[in-house]
């Protein structure tokens, strides 16, 4: 990885040198492409998180054609290394840079200060600056729909949920899932396993097996590989994909999948940066804005499909509010009162498991 990036940086520098020379003579002509760059925490080949971001980058290239020139650096570790990569990209003439992992917030903040003319965007973050915007997707909306489907499809009423790490993002997904599931099946339960990794196909498959052995008959996952779906297929039960449409891996198993859809967001932000209308801010959108899409509802009876579609429409129209009270925590304490709704701040910092979720969070 180290070598990959170094070679990349070198090419970048050489490229910048070549472009700089003629520019002295012609000044900036209209044909000069606008440069945009992305950094990813994982490989673009993960078929999950980083893969979807790269799809967004490709969408920008497609939409804006010759007007833009995009670059990306994959598998960038969160921390000091990210700072160096961001600085290199900014020095190389990129006018807008997307940092696509939570752990990039500090480097992004630092480098944004040093390059006031460059626009920075940080996915899933909360620290902003004049030239540093944040953006995220309301993934939990998709989880709620999955919960409704699971409530209809499960015989045992137990869902096996493979989590990655106990952070608010994962917890809010689980709570939204059980909230949705209990609307159709009040005794529904989630059995969860945290594998402490975002990506480990072998372990994800093992976790799915363990959960199925313990009585779950639907598999949901907040990890990035299609391995749990494959396991569900092997065992003849249904499951949900993650981040991208994984139907190819499990044609008769995947019920649906919440698909991260960064395409339009990236296109609109790069466009805004090009024509000077770009402003810092925070975007946290979901189904309504099209940042979250549901893969086709498959492998379920028509009435369940209709219910799923109705739920999706309800979330889009605002008729269904997911974290609407009453909602209780595991131990029965009321977390959201009847008629109350959780605000975005409280959702973003969620650190309690809802009633119906079995398993423990580290204290």
């Amino acid at each position, binding site marked *: *990885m*180290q*070598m*990959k990036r170094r070679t990349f940086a070198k090419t970048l520098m050489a490229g910048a040198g070549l472009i700089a020379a003629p520019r002295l003579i012609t000044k900036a002509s209209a044909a000069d492409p606008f440069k945009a760059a992305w950094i990813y925490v994982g*490989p673009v*080949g*993960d*078929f999950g998180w980083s*893969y979807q971001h790269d799809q967004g980058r490709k969408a920008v290239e497609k939409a804006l054609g010759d007007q833009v020139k995009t670059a990306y650096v994959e598998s960038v570790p969160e921390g000091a290394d990210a700072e160096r990569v961001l600085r290199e990209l900014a020095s190389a003439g990129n006018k807008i840079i997307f940092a696509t992992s939570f752990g990039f917030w500090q480097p992004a903040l630092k480098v944004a200060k040093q390059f006031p003319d460059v626009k920075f965007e940080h996915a899933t973050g909360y620290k902003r600056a004049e030239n540093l915007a944040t953006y995220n997707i309301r993934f939990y909306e998709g989880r709620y729909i999955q919960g409704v489907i699971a409530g209809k499809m499960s015989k045992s009423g137990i869902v*096996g949920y493979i989590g990655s790490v*106990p952070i608010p993002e994962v917890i809010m997904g689980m709570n939204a899932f059980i909230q949705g599931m209990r609307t159709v099946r009040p005794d529904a339960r989630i*059995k*969860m*396993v*945290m*594998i*402490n*990794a975002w*990506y*480990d*196909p*072998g*372990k*994800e*498959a*093992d*976790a799915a*097996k*363990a*959960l*199925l*052995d*313990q*009585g779950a008959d639907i598999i949901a996952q907040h990890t990035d*590989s*299609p*391995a749990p779906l*494959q396991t569900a297929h*092997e065992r003849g039960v249904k499951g949900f994909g993650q981040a*991208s449409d994984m139907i*190819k*891996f*499990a044609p008769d198993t995947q019920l649906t999948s919440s698909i991260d859809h960064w395409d339009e967001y990236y296109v609109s932000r790069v466009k805004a940066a090009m024509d000077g209308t770009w402003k810092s801010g925070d975007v946290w959108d979901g189904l309504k804005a099209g940042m979250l899409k549901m893969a086709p509802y498959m492998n379920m009876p028509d009435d369940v499909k209709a219910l799923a579609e109705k739920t999706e429409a309800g979330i889009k129209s605002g008729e269904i509010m997911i974290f609407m009270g009453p909602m209780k925590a595991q131990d029965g304490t009321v977390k959201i009162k009847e008629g109350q709704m959780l605000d975005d701040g409280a959702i973003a910092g969620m650190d309690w498991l809802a009633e119906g979720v*079995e*398993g*423990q969070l*580290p*204290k």
Partner: protein
Amino acid sequence: MNGFELFTSVALSVISASTPLLLAATGELVTEKSGVLNLGVEGMMLVGAVIGFAVTLGSGSATLGIVAAALAGTAMALVFAVLTLTLLTNQVATGLALTIFGIGLSALVGAGFVGQPLQPLPKLVLPGLSTLPVIGPILFGQDALVYLSFAALIGVSWFLRKTHAGLVLRAVGDSHDAAHAIGYGVIKVRYLATLFGGAMCGIAGAYFSLAYTPMWAENMTSGRGWIALALVVFAAWRPARLLLGAYLFGGITILQLHIQGFGIAIPSQFVSMLPYLATIVVLVAISSDRTRVRLNTPACLGRAFNAAG
């Protein structure tokens, strides 16, 4: 699910978690017994995984895929062997480089295969026996690579202890100067042992991309190659103990997932740590008896041999 079914199912999970470790560690054990320390296990596994996947997808034959994976692992090992045995580079540094190289190479080769599904490796079914309760699916319903992992281990154990060639290999690993003086081809033996290790790692990789999780994804072995390396030390270079180690590790990996699923109040970070903790505990226990460790450790492990010097 009744008790028997649960037991069968858990046993099957343990077997699939342990098999790739056993395959790779068996290969590495032979390599190390000849005095060569190849830290490139992870890299060789990944290259085996991607080549095995590509060939199986292209040809439709898993057998061809497994053979290709073995050859790919061998090719990686050959690079290592040429560098360390012929050009006398440092084995530790070269092995680390081989792993990094393997991660990058497999990602490059595999770029086009991301997101492609594949039928899992078929289970070999023996009519009558495979349908027996509990022991049927465990003993007679596995895929070919599971049987291969046992066959290879037994073969290696027999080879090292009972055959003349095995004795030569151990002699080369214990004292390359003495072996050379008697007239054995130290470099040749080490080449062969290294290539065998590469082939086994390639097959272990194929187990990932064809059977364990039938797909190709970058870095899909997620560090199992390092575990295999540790298992060889854990086993004190003895095949029987390697089997124990691989299944202990696989077993605890599965057990910790069950502990979490049952909602037992132990932090998930701690249970994720258990397999590694167990490895360290056993390592310490074994190492406490120094003479026995010394008896089994190849004395020339990691040391370059130069016939001219």
